[in-house]
């Protein structure tokens, strides 16, 4: 959520402005934010009004003990007496919690265990029965508590000055404090009755987010750390110094941290590189944005000197960085030395926040966290290109190109913090679907199969926590984890949702997605999904082609083949014949690239069963 020190310079802006304008001009239709059934839902913390399309809420799990203050805003008074008591308490002791101090944050999944980060620690749930059952609570304050999991190790980001090495809360005051911890904590969670902190890797700018990067050595795991806060003093951590590169070539700005974790000795985890991924070809480490070169003003500016989030796709040795002032594309063949391939700027992107690849790595969804997540940025008067997703494509030359914006199409009100936030892919074969959190804008599923025409196909939303006052809440992350969508609700706990069929999504498409299983899911470490040949997968393509108006007779035949297969007797000869016609149709003029891919994929399935 946080952002810090994103001072951009003008030179870079001008340098890339033309490309960015082109991105907008390419968009097939201008996105529109309109009033709909989500706009005027009734407020409430645990009883707000709800609206849903294509999604159904299965479970809503309230925050566990110790992770909410029963007298504070997240547990509203239910009687007048309680209300008066709360008011009296607030008046008497204004030194109360910041609601954010108990916020739920990012999530990861390992086996049947769902891990939910929190500014105050983390919680783990067993989800094998469907309903999340709390199995572990750990307090360790410091925010934001973004986390990842690998085997028995759990990694957690800590960035606030109040964080302490010993997980305590007695504070770490002063400019220099030996007890202060800002960086990546590593917990051993092999024994849920005795979770232990085994390492605490201090970093210069703390840890806002981090990303696990596997290596070819099975005993080594890398962590890319993105720190976005101020640089700490050398007296506190000797490797740190701040300042612009002109004055300090060793500045801790303009880099990320690469942490190497020996898995048999995680206590030895340490920073092994701080690569200058913003450097230009001449070795200027502030190569992406350099201030003053066009002489607009002489004001001192800082530059894109941090990443907010990096998503790696180890299968293709690539990573996408959302790095404050721009999006970048990295080669991570050598994980210790990531190299920038290309970068992208867009004047409508206030703060490049996160990145999500499609399943091939040819497209990247970048998000713009305009105003940092605590502002109401989905109001009717807010432009639909601000605080939105930018769909970018990766060219054969490795260049990123901005194609279209997509924003939650529902106007939210002034008391709902709302902007594009975290999500991941829903593995429906033949389509690029991403489920995404929009804070109090709710959860939205975007189809970006056509990068020029992203469109919403499902949603779930609640009314505001409070109708009159903006209280920060809503979905921090919404992720597809093995058949269900889990949403980490900042104030309300954990929600579990399932896809339900609609005119935009068929039962076969849902079944095909639900059949995909992964052992471990850290959403910032993407893996390519391969679908097995099943009737649901085949029918998904048929449903999609039918929806986009493919030849009706051909689709009828294809449907008959799948129905026969499902009933236990696939008609091999017909399957082969239909496959041939599909292949031919895919090459015909006027067929969209998306549909051509579906036809070839379906033909492939039919050939294999034929």
């Amino acid at each position, binding site marked *: 959520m*946080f*952002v*810090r*020190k994103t*001072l*951009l310079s*003008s030179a870079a*802006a001008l340098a890339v402005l033309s490309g960015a304008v082109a991105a907008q001009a390419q968009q097939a239709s201008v996105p529109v934010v309109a009033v709909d059934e989500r706009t005027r839902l009734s407020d409430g913390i645990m009883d707000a009004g709800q609206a849903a399309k294509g999604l159904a809420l299965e479970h809503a799990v309230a925050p*566990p*003990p*110790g*992770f*909410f203050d029963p007298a504070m805003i997240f547990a509203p008074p239910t009687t007048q007496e309680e209300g008066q008591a709360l008011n009296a308490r*607030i008046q008497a002791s204004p*030194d*109360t*919690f*910041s609601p*954010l101090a108990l916020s739920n944050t990012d999530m990861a999944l390992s086996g049947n265990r769902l891990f939910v980060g929190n500014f*105050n*620690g983390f919680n783990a749930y*067993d989800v094998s*029965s469907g309903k999340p*059952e709390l199995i*572990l*609570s*750990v*307090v*360790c304050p410091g925010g934001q508590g973004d986390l990842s999991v690998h085997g028995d190790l759990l990694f957690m980001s800590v960035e*606030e*000055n*109040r964080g302490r*090495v*010993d997980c*305590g*809360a007695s*504070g770490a*005051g002063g400019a220099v404090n030996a007890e202060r911890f800002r960086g990546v904590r590593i917990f051993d969670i092999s024994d*849920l*009755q*005795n*979770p*232990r*902190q085994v*390492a*605490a890797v201090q970093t210069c700018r703390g840890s806002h987010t981090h990303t696990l990067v596997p290596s070819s050595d099975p005993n080594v795991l890398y962590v890319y750390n993105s720190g976005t806060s101020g640089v700490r003093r050398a007296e506190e951590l000797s490797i740190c110094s701040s300042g612009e590169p002109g004055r300090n070539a060793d500045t801790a700005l303009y880099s990320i941290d690469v942490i190497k974790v020996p898995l048999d000795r995680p*206590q030895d985890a340490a920073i092994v590189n701080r690569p200058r991924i913003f450097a230009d070809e001449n070795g200027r480490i502030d190569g992406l944005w350099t201030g003053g070169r066009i002489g607009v*003003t002489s*004001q001192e*500016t800082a530059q894109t000197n941090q990443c907010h989030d990096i998503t790696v796709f180890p299968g293709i040795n690539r990573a996408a960085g959302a790095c404050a*002032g721009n999006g970048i594309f990295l080669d991570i063949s050598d994980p210790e030395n990531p190299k920038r391939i290309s970068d992208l700027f867009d004047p409508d992107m*206030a703060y490049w926040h996160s990145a999500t690849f499609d399943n091939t790595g040819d497209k990247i969804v970048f998000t713009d966290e305009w105003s*940092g*997540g*605590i*502002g109401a940025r989905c*109001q009717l*008067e807010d432009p639909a290109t601000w605080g939105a997703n930018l769909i970018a494509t990766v060219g054969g030359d490795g260049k990123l190109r901005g194609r279209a914006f997509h924003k939650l199409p529902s106007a939210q009100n*002034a008391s709902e913090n709302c902007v594009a936030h975290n999500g991941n892919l829903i593995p429906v074969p033949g389509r690029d679907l991403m489920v995404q959190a929009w804070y109090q804008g709710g959860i939205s599923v975007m189809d970006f199969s056509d990068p020029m025409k992203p469109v919403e196909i499902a949603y779930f939303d609640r009314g505001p926590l409070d109708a009159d*006052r903006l209280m920060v809440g809503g979905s921090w992350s919404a992720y597809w984890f093995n058949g269900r969508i889990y949403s980490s609700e900042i104030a309300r706990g954990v929600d579990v949702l399932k896809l339900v069929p609609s005119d935009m999504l068929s039962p076969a498409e849902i079944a095909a997605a639900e059949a995909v299983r992964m052992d471990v899911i850290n959403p910032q470490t993407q893996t390519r999904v391969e679908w097995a040949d099943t009737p649901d997968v085949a029918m998904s393509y048929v449903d999609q082609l039918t929806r986009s108006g493919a030849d009706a007779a051909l689709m009828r035949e294809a449907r008959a083949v799948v129905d026969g297969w499902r009933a236990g007797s696939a008609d091999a000869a017909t399957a082969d014949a239909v496959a041939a016609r599909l292949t031919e149709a895919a090459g015909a003029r006027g067929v969209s690239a998306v549909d051509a891919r579906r036809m070839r994929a379906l033909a492939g399935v039919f050939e294999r069963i034929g």
Partner: protein
Amino acid sequence: MPHPLGIALGILSLTAQDPTTPARQDPPASPPIFQPGAPGQPTRTVTAEQAAELARTTYTEADVRFMQHMIVHHAQAVDMVKLLEVRGHSPRVKALGRRIAIGQASEMDLMRGWLQARGQPVEAHDLHAGHGAPAAGGHDAHAGHADHAGHAAAPSETPIMPGMLSPAQMARLAAAEGVEFDRLFLEGMIQHHQGALDMVEELLALPDSAEDTLLSDFVTSVVADQSSEILRMRSLLAEL
């Protein structure tokens, strides 16, 4: 540890407890809450109350003053955009101005809410005393509005706070039109935004400031937004 809960059970029975422990008094049983120690140090268990207590953050007088001042600071940007709507020229400058006004107005709401929730006055009582504020002795915080200051004498060249436009600057802006207005607006807003960045920097340099989570979050988003808006304004200024 008293709770024999184990992951081997797969699905945990929430009533599983040591038989010697009285079950009735407890709320629905949940796993113990752990507070790990530093690496190499043991983990201990804490109660739910202690766990929540660990999240408690405090704020300083400087934090309060920062929020009060920033409200006044932001109000000026909203005023400037009101002028832009009627006197400005370039649609692109107007679009940017609207975005700024939207952002600043909602941040003002957030700051007021933060102060009110902590029982702090929304208005800054120290502004009139220092900084050469024109409405000496006044008790409201409206001195940030240039028109308020400009009735009697010639408007002052001294801003009410560092980082704001002076009453004289605001008067010149209000008198300009067209492209000249756009230029003054952009220059003024860049100065204004830079002022907010300076205010944040000043706050963060103070011991124990901005430790409150919401405040910390707020100042970081102020930096991000205003910085990128400065960038955009410089681009526009170069094209005038």
